[in-house]
């Protein structure tokens, strides 16, 4: 499979029909975004604005929408880190990661380095019930990288972790990603998190979501723990978005 040349997302409309007593919801309208090859893009938007819906469209889990995503799902190998780890509780850490490799002849050669990179080598035989939520999330990240994805989707993967753990996980994600570069779409509602990670931030409107601002982050990742620099960027992004909105 050729490496992903880039991703064009155009969702003219995505609505969920009314069911029972909840009315129809329009999740996305006139959503356009282009993601370059190997680019790390963060989508930032208020909770419930349709970010998860968008990732599910890109991942091909939901094909009922008006618009087009190019290249289509079938031509892309996708790694997906869901908001919850979604591990199979009856499989060990190793087996959870190995499962997505299909029938690879030597799964260990691909799984073990990833478990080492995510600090899980001592837990490869453990079941989910014995793992902390932070460790389960690391397994979920290792699994997404294991397929050697052309496109990596992450849906608020560090939400509900304490700040120190979340920071360590972000550093880990960047480290693993640098060793295995791939195109990334990372969804979050936390602007600080987006600044820490992204090459470019796309700010979304409340539902129905569309992109209201795109801000490249040129600050090298090594300097992104500099409070003053982060505050400047936050102020700049707020200014941007308020103008547009």
């Amino acid at each position: 499979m050729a490496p992903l040349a880039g991703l064009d997302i155009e969702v003219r409309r995505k609505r969920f029909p009314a069911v029972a007593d909840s009315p129809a919801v329009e999740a996305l309208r006139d959503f356009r975004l282009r993601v370059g090859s190997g680019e790390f893009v963060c989508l930032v938007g208020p909770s419930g604005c349709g970010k998860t819906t968008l990732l599910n469209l890109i991942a091909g889990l939901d094909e009922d929408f008006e618009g087009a995503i190019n290249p289509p799902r079938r031509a892309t190998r996708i790694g997906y880190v869901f908001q919850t780890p979604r591990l199979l509780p009856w499989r060990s850490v190793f087996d959870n990661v190995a499962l997505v490799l299909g029938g690879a002849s030597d799964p260990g050669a691909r799984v073990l380095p990833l478990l080492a990179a995510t600090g899980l080598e001592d837990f490869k035989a453990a079941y989910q019930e014995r793992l902390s939520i932070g460790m389960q999330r690391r397994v979920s990240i290792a699994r997404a990288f294991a397929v050697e994805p052309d496109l990596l989707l992450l849906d608020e993967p560090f939400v509900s972790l304490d700040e120190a753990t979340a920071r360590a996980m972000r550093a880990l994600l960047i480290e693993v990603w640098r060793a295995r570069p791939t195109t990334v779409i990372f969804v979050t509602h936390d602007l600080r998190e987006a600044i820490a990670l992204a090459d470019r931030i796309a700010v979304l409107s409340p539902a129905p979501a569309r992109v209201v601002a795109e801000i490249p982050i040129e600050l090298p990742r090594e300097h992104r723990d500099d409070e003053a620099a982060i505050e400047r960027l936050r102020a700049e992004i707020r200014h941007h978005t308020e103008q547009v909105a």
Partner: protein
Amino acid sequence: MGLQHRLVQAALSLIALLVLWQIAAALADSRLLPGPDLVLTVMARATASGELPYHLGITLWRVTASFALAMLIGMAIGILLGRKPGLDRYMDSWLVLFLNIPALVTIILAYVWFGLVEAAAIGAVAVNKIPNVAVTLREGARALDRDLLEMAQAFRLSRVQTLRHVVLPQLSPYVMVAARSGLALIWKIVLVVELLGRSDGVGFQLQLFFQLFDVPAILAYTLAFVAVVQVIELTILQPLERRVTRWRR
């Protein structure tokens, strides 16, 4: 509580039952209520002659065949109905109907329509059990975790992989329930099938002894059969259940 302790307890309680039985037989003093000593003698004799193992073996083969058939077909129907609500609404009344057809009616009709043949016997038993399995597995298939199915889809697991590694493990508690109740039901119905239309098997023998009012032989065959079913439960079903739930704390 240790395994040993539990075994001792079970043995003591069985011995108590045997003693009670012996006392009752002594009080009744009738050839229609033989004591355990006589029954055990008959059992030993029938085993030595090869008659008991022969008929027991035939019955066990019928139990196995109809059990496997019922589980396979029942699971397929149950999973399908649990995943396709439209089809389920349409087929639900069929299931209710088949659930309520008495076993005896299915057996008689199978013999009338297909003759007194082995396939009719095994098929009739399976048909009796299929609706139960289907209803149990339908519950399980309805409760499947959507998040995990999406995970399988996002990572493009094949249908077979998804079924084997994502779906079936979630269904395993339901499969165990269906298997347990299935075995309990099927081995009783198999005896009826044999009594009505076969010329071998435990059911056939029981009918023979009934005509002769040979109570010791009836009890000997019954006890042997109960023992075998217990052994199956202990050596196959329980270890299987431990295996499929070993990931639980």
